[in-house]
Each structure stands twice: as C-alpha cells, then as structure tokens.
C-alpha cells in the first residue's frame, strides 16, 4: 500500500486529478465528507489530506511514502526527502516586495518581514547584505505599511494583494511550484509503485 499525503485545498484536488489519471485512483477522495483518510485496495493507494505546510513532515518522518509540497516549504525546512518531479501546478514566485519606488539604502540594516526566515537569510547572505529578520505568521504585507520593516519576503501569485496595499515586487528570489516528494527509505521498499507513479505523473505533466 502506497501512503500519499495530499495538501488540503484547491491545489490538492488538482493534484489528486493528476494522480488518478496516472492510474492511482481512489474516487472516495473527492466525496464531500469529514473523513481524512481514503483507501483503494485495488490500486494499492491510501490518500490522506494534511495541512500543506505539514506534507513534508509526514513524508520525511515516513508516515507517508509520497507527498506533494510547495518548493517554498522544501527550501525553508529542507526535509531530507527525494524531490522526484516538478508537477508545474500552483505556480508562483518567492519575491522581495516593498513600497512602490523603494530603494535600498545600503548604509542601514535592511529590516525584512517574512514567514520564510531561512530563504530570506540565505538570499541576502548571498548578496553580503546585513538584514534584520522579523518573523511573522501572516498578514506580512502590513509590515512595511506600518513601518515595522522596510520590505517583505513572501510568495507572490498574481501580485493583486501587493497592489492593493501599495506594494510592488522588487526582486524575484526563486520560482515556486508543487513538487512530488518521497521518503528515502520508503522509496527503497516500494520502488516499483513509486517509479510507476512518477512516470505516470511525468507523462501527465509533460502532456499539459
């Protein structure tokens, strides 16, 4: 039985569609119920819905053999897993944003608000820029407006929220999309099923 952790929400449903077309169907997944775990003995899969940011933990700790996680989570938490495929879904980018027309005055420490401390720290370390990270858990956009920080590092999809808050993208750090990940030990013992799934998904992704 292949254990698969899917991210709850719209992206997860899209991802399930890909898995089903690749031959790993489990129709109960899409039923409107409060159940969180779904099994299909015929196709040999057990799906479960988890919080998107937790998928990598389930996979790294072996509760799931396979999962789908955003590249942002993989870069931030560095779970020790295989990253087998770019599913090219949920595309967005990790970016530095700030008030329109902002210029970085290099003589001051740059104050950065973010949920992604590691990504921000590594990005600025690569430029040799001294920064002060303020870790926030949500409503990051508000930080520069209230003068809490100079800029933010966050995920930008359409840029609409930024625009509404008079912010703009200053630099793109890295493109983000959903990735198929696998537990390193699970891969050794369920190789055939995981390779079959990966190849099936690759065909689906390349065909789109």
């Amino acid at each position: 039985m292949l254990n698969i952790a899917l991210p709850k929400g719209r992206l997860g449903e899209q991802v399930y569609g890909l898995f089903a077309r690749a031959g790993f169907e489990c129709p109960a997944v899409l039923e409107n119920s409060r159940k969180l775990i779904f099994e299909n003995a015929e196709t040999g899969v057990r799906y479960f819905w988890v919080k998107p940011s937790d998928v990598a933990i389930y996979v790294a700790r072996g509760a799931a053999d396979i999962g789908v996680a955003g590249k942002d989570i993989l870069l931030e938490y560095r779970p020790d897993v295989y990253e087998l495929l770019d599913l090219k879904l949920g595309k967005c980018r990790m970016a530095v944003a700030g008030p329109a027309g902002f210029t970085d005055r290099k003589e001051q420490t740059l104050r950065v608000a973010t949920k992604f401390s590691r990504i921000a720290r590594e990005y600025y370390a690569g430029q040799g820029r001294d920064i002060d990270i303020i870790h926030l858990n949500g409503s990051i956009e508000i930080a520069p407006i209230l003068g809490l920080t100079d800029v933010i590092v966050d995920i930008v999809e359409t840029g609409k929220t930024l625009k509404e808050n008079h912010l703009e993208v200053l630099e793109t750090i890295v493109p983000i999309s959903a990735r198929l990940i696998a537990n390193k030990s699970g891969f050794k013992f369920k190789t055939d099923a995981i390779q079959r799934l990966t190849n099936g998904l690759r065909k689906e992704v390349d065909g789109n």
Partner: protein
Amino acid sequence: MWIEDRLMDTQERIGYRLMDLYDTNGYNRYRMSKFEEYDLYSRNRDFLLSENVITFTDTNGRLMAMKPDVTLSIVKNMKDAGRDIRKLYYYEHVYRAADETEGFREQTQVGLECMGQISAACISGVLTLAARSLQLCSEHSVLEISHLGILKTVTDELSGEHPEIKTSLLHCVSEKNTHGITDICREAGIEAGKEETLQRLIGLYGSPEKVLEELHVFPESAKLKEMISELEHAVSGIRSAQEQLNRHIIIDFSATEDLRYYNGIAFKGFIEGIPESVLSGGQYDGLMRRMGRKDQAIGFAVFLNRLERLREGESHA
C-alpha cells in the same frame, strides 16, 4: 557470564550482536573518552553531521567538547598503519543536536573503521559487514552503494571551476532532483543537453547487475572505466562472500557524502518501516589527508537510536 536477552532493550541487544560480528571478523575494540578538545571539531566542522557541539571548560582551562562524532577521534589518535591494515570497532555515545529547535540528544553508535592500504578486498569486506549488520537487524533491509569518484567526474564536467554550482548540483543528486539540475544548468548558462549524463546517472537505480550493465554504455573515459570496474569489484566481492546478500544490495548514485572528505565507495543502509538511514559509511581518504595522515580509510556507523522502534520479532538479534 551469560546475560539473558530479556535484560536488554532492542538497541543493546543489536549493539552487542554487532560487536560480536565485528569481533569475530578480526576487528579490535577501540575505546575512547567521552570528551575531546573542542579545537578538533572546530577545524573539521563540515565533517560533522550537525554543527552543534556541547562545550565546557575543563579544570585546566582547556575548552572541551562532548564527542559529537567518533571517526574524528579515531583518526586523530591512531598512527598510520603503513603496509598493514588496522581494523577497529567501537560502541560509543555521541551528543548532537539535529537542528536548533530539537536540542541536544545522546545517540548510540556502533561502527567500524579500516585503515591502511585499502584494497578492493578490504572494501568488499567492509561492505559485506555493512550488509550483514543490516540483516542482523532485519530481513527487510537494503544497502545502497554509490561511487563518489564516478559522481564527481560527471559533476565536475558540468560545473567546471564553480564550487557553488557543484554544491547545488550535488544537493540535487542527493534528492534525485533531475528538474533541479536542469534549472541550475540553465541559470548558469550551461549549454542545454550537457546535463543529461548526470541526470541519467542518478536515474540509474536497482540491482548491481542491472545498473552495472547500464553504466557500461556511459561516455567512455579511461578514468570512468577504472572507477566503474572498482564499483563492480566491490559489489561482486559481497556476493562471493555471501550469495544471499546480493538481493539486498542496490546501486544508487544519490547516496552522496561531502566530497572534501569522502571519495570512492559510499553507502547507506535502510530498514523497512524506519524512515531514515540506519547505517552510513564510505571511504574517507580526504579526511585522512586533512588530518595529516598518509593511510587510506573506510568505515561505517550503525545508528542504534534509529532502531529503537524496530518491530518486535523483526530483529534477528
């Protein structure tokens, strides 16, 4: 005095059985102090699995550390064996913090080191003991073997003189991340298609027979050929030692180690139901050179803490 199994927990039982295995195969017990001068670790920070070390000031004012690693102490304390082979095993506790949030934990390791002029037979011998160690823990185990020389040759061709590109590529290799390799190459302006050899290399996975056959159609160079034949000798040596071990061996080039310390054969062991590797090892001539030693060396460690939840009745120990 015979000690009954019921008095020991899984870790202890397996630990003693492993020591018995190494002892009966000509290895000698090596004991060491719990402490080392901190300087040893600060000079070899990258070699450690975790950079965090517990330090304290000794009564004579020296800055000491609770051992986070065993191999460094052995390398530091042993003299070169010259033409001989030195075979040592240990059962030790080390102190590490996986990351800032998890805090320090005591971990128990059993392992062995083989130092001197490392021959093909010596490599096979160590690999056989690694595979047997896993079998002693569980019938459902796999030893994955890689050759860092092959990986380095293919990666160097792609990254040229850029160490950052090489580091990123090797990280992708350890993740089996072929799309990541394409992204890195495009960003670095490397001609499209040049990355295919590295991608094919990490796509190879499976029994030694299957992978070695596929490896022979790789771009030919005398250097690569020699290393492929080294890998072939190493795995065929395991089979001649114990035929039934062969079905528990796979070749997988994603088993990487830090190339500044390790070279040649590298390997990791997995047991079904345990999410992380339970055994890790390889040839580390690079570390020996950095520590001013002339000998070559190969060894591995079994992480007993990770075996804590081995299913009851599964262990052969």
